[in-house]
């Protein structure tokens, strides 16, 4: 019994690390721009299809694909922000940008529907040299794909964390998130920062898509599913906090595996939602968040 739950804990932690990388882009966007990207999951789904075909048709190593999808998605995010989202944000300055919400949910809906038409409704599982291999550590089994994905996920999240905290550009981002007007007075070019933030956010999505595809089948319903999980993680960890996101991801992963083992998948989804509501009720700023709002 104990062994079963320890196994669930290990699986949950490994999965949670990857979830955190998916969610961190969403969190960054919210932190810097106060916008929530409703197309987040749909873009992840597209990146997963891209990786799937890179792996299956071009035969590229699935972990090398991280670099390609990361770069492609950076460009996608940068351009989306520059040509579409930025104008919408500028148009409504003071209020909560409702139009961005509507616009991105339209984008997400369209992408999901197009994916159904183009790629079909069935789930695609990529075959990699690592698929099905696992390490035996005492009584526990650790999937090789999940372990490698976990390591890459955590490293890239930490790199992002230090980028935001330590570099000039990263600090400019934090400044913009704290106070747009003052940041502009300090000579920070707001539009560039916004485009960069969205680019980085999507680059993280691209990386996590490649990590996910090594063990998770892609279908057009993946988008909505991961949007949902990412939102829960962002709320758990505190909006805009990168380290909170990592912690939130691990918590969500562990809960999912734990209750999945104890009962079934449906129960684990319901438990996640209950947790989400409880956090909203008692600590809306998240686990690591400071009480400010």
């Amino acid at each position, binding site marked *: 019994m104990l062994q079963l739950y320890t196994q669930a804990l290990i699986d949950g932690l490994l999965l949670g690390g990857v979830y955190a990388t998916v969610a961190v882009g969403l969190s960054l966007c919210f932190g810097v721009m106060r916008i*929530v990207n409703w197309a987040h999951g749909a873009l992840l789904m597209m990146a997963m299809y891209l990786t799937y075909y890179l792996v299956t048709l071009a035969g590229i190593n699935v972990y090398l694909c991280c670099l390609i999808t990361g770069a492609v998605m950076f460009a996608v995010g940068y351009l989306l922000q520059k040509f579409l989202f930025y104008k919408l944000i500028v148009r409504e300055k003071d209020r909560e940008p*409702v139009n961005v919400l509507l616009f991105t*949910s339209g984008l997400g*809906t369209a992408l999901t*529907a197009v994916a159904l038409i183009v790629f079909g409704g069935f789930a695609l599982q990529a075959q990699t040299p690592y698929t099905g291999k696992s390490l035996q550590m005492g009584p526990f089994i650790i999937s090789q794909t999940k372990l490698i994905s976990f390591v890459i996920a955590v490293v890239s999240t930490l790199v992002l964390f230090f980028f935001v905290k330590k570099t000039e550009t990263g600090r400019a981002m934090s400044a913009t998130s704290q106070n747009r007007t003052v940041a502009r007075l300090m000579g920070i070019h707001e539009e560039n920062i916004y485009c960069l933030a969205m680019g980085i956010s999507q680059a993280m999505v691209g990386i996590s898509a490649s990590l996910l595809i090594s063990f998770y089948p892609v279908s057009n319903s993946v988008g909505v599913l991961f949007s949902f999980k990412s939102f829960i993680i962002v*709320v758990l960890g505190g909006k805009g906090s990168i380290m909170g996101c990592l912690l939130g991801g691990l918590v969500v992963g562990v809960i999912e595996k734990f209750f999945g083992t104890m009962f079934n998948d449906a129960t684990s*989804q319901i438990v996640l939602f209950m947790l989400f509501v409880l956090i909203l009720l008692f600590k*809306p700023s998240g686990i690591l968040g400071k009480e400010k709002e």
Partner: protein
Amino acid sequence: MKKLVRKPGRAFGVLLLAALLLFPAVVSQQFTINSFCLVFLYAYWASSWNILGGYTGQMSLGHACFVGLGAYTTAVLFSHFHCSPWIGLLAAGLVAGLASLVIGIPCFKLKGSYFTLSTVALCHVFRIVFNTNSTLFGLETGAAQGMKLPWRGGLAAMQFLDKRSYYYIILGMLLLVLLVSYAIKRSKLGYYLAAIRTNQDAAASLGVNVLGMKLTAMFISAFFTAMGGGLYAMFLQYIDPNSVFAYDLSVKIMVLAVVGGGGTLWGPIVGASLLVPVQQILNSRLGANLAGLALAVYGVVLMIVIYFMPKGFLDTILRWLRKLREKLGKPKEGQVCR
């Protein structure tokens, strides 16, 4: 009569209503009647959504949850308790209304996107619960296979072989929700809601009970949405969790209202009458081959409208009409001067 002439909008409305009332007498083709029923039903849902999403500015993406609750309440009452759907619809409204209060109290702690998210998540949970349990509270709901309603027939059972009866019932409900929306807009409540939409903090500082008003709006909105859900169950005679608790349905309801013009009385009607027929044509022509096309169109139209006409179609149409009237009106004034 003079009033009607002076206000062309009102005259147009009266004519349109008369035409809609007479329409089934002229056309009896079931497919056409069926299409009209769906347009009315989506217009009805979009109008109900508009009370919360448009007037109050709380973008709910979980209205399918109320549709589903309403549909299941009505269906369960009808098949297990032999309760007439006319009472079932009211019960459906009350169940969904109560659910909306339970949901609203925690979720309204959040603003904007996070409120929207909580509605999505909730609908998701309801779908899972209904999909995985074949009995709920000891009543059979059939899990993912859904429920087929027993045939009893007649007015009391709201089961008709002729779709024209549903046409009149749905049209009547649509008029009802429009009347309620109009009353809300003109009432104190309506002004409070508008204040909350424009600036919540300012409204609160002026003494508006923000949470109370939001809950009221959500209750009314959920009540009517669920009644539509019950009607949908009677109309199709079959329901399943994946179609009534669907995220797609929530998106459609929202898109219709927003594309038409969120926060206006006629916006949802305009949105539904423009987009639902497109969806019907796409589904009937391409249907099986391109399952997602209708939804893709919805998404793209939403993006285009938000980008180019943020106030919705209705606003744009009205502006065109005003320009047209100015152009037509000018020579007349000249004549009067002479």
